[in-house]
């Protein structure tokens, strides 16, 4: 069957893409300004870019909520709905330790998963929290600095700097490599055109989603 399923709507792709690009631009500008010993002018310029890009980043977050609430709702609902199969995913971490590192951790079988597997649900909830919290702390630190008591400022600053780094490590160390494992999903979310994946990819990755939430469309094949 060369059939395709629409998994990623336009709003999903735009939000995810802009988010990913601005996230790494913010990480780069922030981390280089924070850690590298460069001239004052360069560091200040990096921070000016950091704040400018943060505007785009923040509007992107708000835009997803305001202009695509149904996609936001579908995403959040899926992430917050956990069943036994979701929890059982953690017994062998989706089989990845065995698959990549030969570590015989847990049973061989991975229980059937929904649209997002257990690991995705947990890490995406963390990512969404971090995206939100970094935006909030970032604007408070930049704009409200004179009005924020010192203790609160210090904690927000440490959260902003180290939270963003730890989260980025999760993204680079887990999210991206695992995303590359399924070329269909990767093309679906990043490619130009409709965000579709093959029927087989859905059968493999998210059979319960396929069974419960995926329906046939009435669209004719050209």
């Amino acid at each position, binding site marked *: 069957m060369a*059939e*395709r399923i*629409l998994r990623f709507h336009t709003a999903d792709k735009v939000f995810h893409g802009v988010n990913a690009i601005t996230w790494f631009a913010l990480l780069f500008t922030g981390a280089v300004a924070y850690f590298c010993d460069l001239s004052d002018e360069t560091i200040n310029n990096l921070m000016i870019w950091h704040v400018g890009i943060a505007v785009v980043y923040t509007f992107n977050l708000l835009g997803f909520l305001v202009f695509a609430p149904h996609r936001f709702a579908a995403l959040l609902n899926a992430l*917050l709905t956990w069943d036994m199969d979701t929890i059982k995913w953690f017994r062998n971490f989706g089989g990845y330790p065995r698959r990549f590192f030969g570590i015989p951790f847990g049973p061989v079988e991975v229980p059937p998963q929904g649209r997002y597997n257990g690991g995705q649900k947990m890490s995406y909830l963390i990512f969404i929290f971090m995206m939100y919290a970094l935006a909030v702390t970032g604007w408070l630190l930049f704009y409200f600095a004179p009005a924020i*008591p010192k203790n609160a400022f210090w904690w927000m600053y440490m959260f902003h700097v180290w939270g963003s780094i730890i989260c980025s490590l999760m993204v680079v160390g887990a999210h991206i490599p695992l995303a590359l494992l399924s070329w269909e999903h990767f093309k679906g979310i990043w490619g130009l*055109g409709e965000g*579709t994946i093959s029927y087989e990819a859905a059968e493999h990755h998210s059979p319960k989603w396929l069974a419960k939430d995926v*329906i046939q469309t009435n*669209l004719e094949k050209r």
Partner: protein
Amino acid sequence: MRKYEYTERQTMAMLGRRGFLKVTGVTALAIGITGYAVVDLLQRRTDVIKARQRGLYKDDKLCQEQNLTNSHQNPSVMRFYADMHTEPVEGLAHDLLHTSYYPRSQLAILRGEH
């Protein structure tokens, strides 16, 4: 462009009432808690300043109870003028208790540099 044969159900159909309440509830809670925390933090920022100010107004009240409300009622201050034989702003009081200022952009002129 090739269309797709399958798609996800409509969001409201997938969520149902439970899902809708769950999502709106969590989002409202997150925004609400953040909003409350930030507003509370900002509102309480000057509490220390206000507490210290209140401390001094309390001291004012304690002095007023001793009939020491206004500066011209201070006996030690009045003694200074009596003992030193001077009046406010005049003569000795002027020499000891008044001063002059220096426009800092004109220090060169004031120091006689031409």
